[in-house]
């Protein structure tokens, strides 16, 4: 049973979607059963994951570091493509993020009157594709799932977006198509230069690509360097890294809260995770050689995005920039390549995703009640303010998310951020100091925003804001609870990540 658990987990959400198609509309006129079915299939895959994590945790025999529960089938023999999935500490923690966020999103869309069915089906398709990308051990399978993951997102944005959704959807499609094209070229080059031709990550790891060349119209090009460049740019585009973060701005303005959360706190962390996977397993030498450049790009990201965030007057754009800035911090951790920094990077992806999801969902809460997401008008007047007087529970819950995003003690963010700083300090002390410094500035303006929204002068539209509804309470408090738990008792998960990270790191040194 356990061998099939990963596969089961990947395809349970898809099964949920397919089951919906079978139920005739007459049997379930109010969509009640369908809603529960969506939630159940999303939860069920999460349950599989927790089983897997527990078994990973109690696994002591054998090679503890290597990926576990490998399941491999031949898929297309002519091109040596196989269906191969496995789980280790790193993928388990990113999958945890996915399996927490999607049930929450389904909860967010619970009361949607039209299109409930469409939104939830697309969320589940997205969940399947992201799980697939995270667990794949075969590059082709990984690309297959990852490239597909842009399709549900495109539909979500283009169907349920705001007034200028066409341009947002178009920008998203163009950037993801370019990113997929770059990855596809890299993939075919890697396949072609491996000997014998193949896609299995295990067989390609450990610098097998070093020294292989390909000639493009007379120029001889080293495959590893070229493919690494393509892959980095490809994932940077999908991770909305500066200077490729343009699409995220328009998506954050146009997409509704739940879709924005799906992009910002699931799709982007998965993109970063995949970059870690590729960089550490396939191109260890190049990553080690370029580590300074990676760190510099990370520093530029968190500084530039942080400065941009400070000037935003729109809650979602603010979050988008915070997300980019957080990705920059993670990138520093990837570039530094010490055990604490890698562990911190993965942990931070998880915790930051949860924090941004919380605040993103709050932006949906405020948009539903006041019809706007601008907390400050252009002339400096407060548009949303004094929410805490009418909605004390919301204020409390959002405080937890904000604390976690800022990395203050007691929240999960503190663990991730401090590990990153500790890991960075040993080799790049200046960068570590910059990280702390920028965190302090971020704390200043984010807390300022928090003060304006919750305790400031009451805005025109915020006079009659109602507090959280029961469903909202349910998922937001659960989310906040998870963040606090990750901040108080991080040891088991950190240990899992550390062990799997250790397996990747020796190849780098």
């Amino acid at each position, binding site marked *: 049973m356990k061998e099939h658990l990963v596969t089961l987990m990947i395809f349970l959400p898809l099964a949920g979607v397919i089951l919906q198609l079978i139920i005739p509309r007459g049997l379930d006129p109010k969509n009640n059963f369908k809603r529960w079915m969506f939630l159940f299939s999303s939860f069920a895959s999460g349950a599989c994951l927790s089983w897997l994590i527990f078994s990973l945790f109690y696994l002591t025999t054998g090679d503890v570091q290597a990926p576990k529960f490998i399941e491999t089938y031949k898929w297309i023999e*002519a091109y040596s493509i196989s269906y191969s999935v496995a789980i280790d500490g790193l993928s388990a923690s990113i999958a945890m993020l996915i399996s927490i966020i999607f049930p929450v999103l389904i909860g967010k869309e619970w009361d949607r009157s039209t299109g409930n069915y469409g939104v939830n089906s697309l969320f589940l398709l997205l969940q399947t594709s992201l799980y697939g990308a995270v667990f794949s051990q075969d590059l082709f399978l990984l690309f297959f*799932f990852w490239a597909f993951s842009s399709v549900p997102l495109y539909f979500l944005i283009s169907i349920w977006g705001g007034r200028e959704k066409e341009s947002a959807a178009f920008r998203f499609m163009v950037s993801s*198509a370019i990113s997929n094209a770059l990855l596809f070229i890299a993939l075919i080059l890697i396949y072609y230069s491996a000997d014998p031709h193949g896609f299995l990550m295990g067989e390609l790891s450990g610098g097998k690509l070093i020294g292989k060349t390909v000639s*493009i119209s007379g120029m001889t090009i080293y495959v590893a360097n070229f493919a690494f460049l393509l892959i980095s740019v490809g994932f940077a585009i999908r991770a909305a890294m500066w200077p490729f973060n343009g699409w995220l701005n328009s998506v954050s303005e146009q997409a509704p809260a739940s879709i924005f959360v799906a992009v910002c706190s699931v799709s982007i962390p998965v993109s970063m995770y995949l970059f870690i996977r590729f960089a550490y397993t396939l191109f260890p030498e190049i990553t080690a050689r370029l580590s300074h450049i990676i760190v510099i790009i990370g520093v530029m990201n968190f500084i530039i995005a942080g400065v941009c965030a400070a000037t935003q007057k729109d809650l979602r754009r603010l979050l988008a920039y915070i997300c980019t800035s957080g990705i920059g911090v993670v990138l520093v951790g990837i570039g530094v390549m010490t055990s604490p920094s890698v562990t911190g990077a993965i942990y931070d992806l998880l915790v930051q995703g949860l924090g941004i999801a919380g605040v993103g969902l709050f932006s949906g809460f405020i948009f539903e009640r006041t019809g706007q997401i601008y907390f400050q008008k252009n002339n400096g007047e407060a548009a949303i303010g004094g929410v805490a007087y009418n909605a004390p529970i919301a204020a409390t819950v959002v405080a937890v998310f904000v604390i976690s995003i800022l990395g203050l003690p007691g929240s999960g963010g503190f663990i991730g951020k401090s590990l990153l700083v500790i890991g960075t300090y040993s080799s790049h002390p200046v960068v570590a100091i910059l990280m702390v410094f920028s965190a302090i500035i971020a704390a200043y303006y984010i807390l300022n925003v928090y003060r304006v929204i919750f305790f400031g002068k009451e805005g025109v539209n915020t006079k009659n804001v109602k507090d959280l509804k029961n469903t909202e309470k349910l998922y937001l408090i659960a989310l906040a609870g998870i963040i606090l738990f990750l901040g108080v008792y991080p040891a088991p998960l950190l240990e899992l990540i550390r062990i799997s990270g250790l397996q990747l790191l020796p190849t780098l040194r």
Partner: protein
Amino acid sequence: MSIQDFIFVLPEIFLALTICFILVAEITYHGEKIRLVSATALVGLGTALLQSVIVMMKGPARVFSGSMAIDGLTFFFRILFIGLGAITIISSVTSKEINPTMRAEYTVLLVASCLGMCVSASATDVVLGFLALQLSIMSGYFLAGYSKWHPPGNEAAIKIMIGNVTAAAFLAYGLAMIFASTGQLNMQDIHISLMSSGLSQKETLMTFVFILFAICFPLGIFPFHFWSPDVAEGAPTPVSSFLSVGIKSAALALGLRLIMALFAQPALTLGQWQILGQLEWPRILAVISSVSMLYGALLAFRQQSAKRLMGYLLVSQTGALLMGMLVLDDRGITAILFNLLVELIAVTGVFYVLSVFYDEAKTDNLEKLKLITKRAIPETIALIFFVMCIVGLPPTPGFFGKFALFEIALRYGWSLLLIVAILSMTISVIAASRLIYNMVGGLGAVYSERALVVDSWRRVFIYVLLAPLVVAAVFVQPIFEWLGKSIKFILW
């Protein structure tokens, strides 16, 4: 020639008989209620399909003094063309664009075109191939201009006629040059004769360019692509898909045989070829392939008509197919055949759904389709899947087809071509996303219009087309295996 030979061409004989039946029945028609034209045609096509399977079991053979080769390639293309004909007839039954009183003529033309395609796939005699291709395209003139009062249809018919006359002249001239220097008309004899005393480089260049131009026209690729988007837009919607896929595949089958026999020879490694003569003709093909891929994708970007947009996407797709030919390898041909198979279903699917919409809206303008799509959500989802399949997005089988083509291109060092191909694929994905946006963009709004009433037969037919694509995405391996096997029995 013996009686035995006739058994091998039974499918073609059945097709010809079907044409006769329908004609005779139409002459004797005196206003009875039931005419059964389409049913007769379907029975004929079904029998022909059965016959081609039976004939295949007898193994490969050369018949009629070597003027036809009945081999794996023939088998594949017979299945493809007869299947295409059957799907087109079924989809025309329900379409409002085909006038029921003139259905007999329409069906005869369609089956005749199908017959021409089948013969051109098996012809190894250059004159027979020429005639068969002309039969299929000439029937296409009438089919394209079938709705007489529809100006774009008339334009398409005129364009395909003028273009084809020019292309036929090129082909005849090229073949005449070959005949002048070898004195043979049979491809095998020509091949043997060329092996012993080759053409000079200039002669090869001239013949190659002539034959290539002549093949480029029915393929609908740059520089002779102009008819293909026009036909896609102007012809009645079921015919659009028939002509787009059918003529292209017929030309591809004939082109494969011609080019492999005239300009290539088997290499020492099994399943590979090398160039015959001194001309580096794969380079010319590569240029044409890359220009068509980019050109089609870029122009698709600007279209306002859904059918025309598909037409340009197909120009780009056909350009990609050429990549499989220029590598001179069995795997390339397998990739071409796989792509054709996928395209057959996906393209008919797209045009079928568009014809459902067309019957309601009387237009295929992207802006106006918006109003229809939100009333017919299952059809829209199917349409999106078909389009994704054509542009090659995962998880559709189109993605595997594209991958097979790209992989083989890189294997033979065509890395620049590969980059152009992936670039044009990206552009066509973006172009297709414009089409898709117009389909789904209005879905989110609250609306109170009634759902579009789609005939349940039409809906079932859409699912029938959708099912093999979904299955093919999972079981790619058996299809590739089957194609690889049928390639082994080609009598070049």
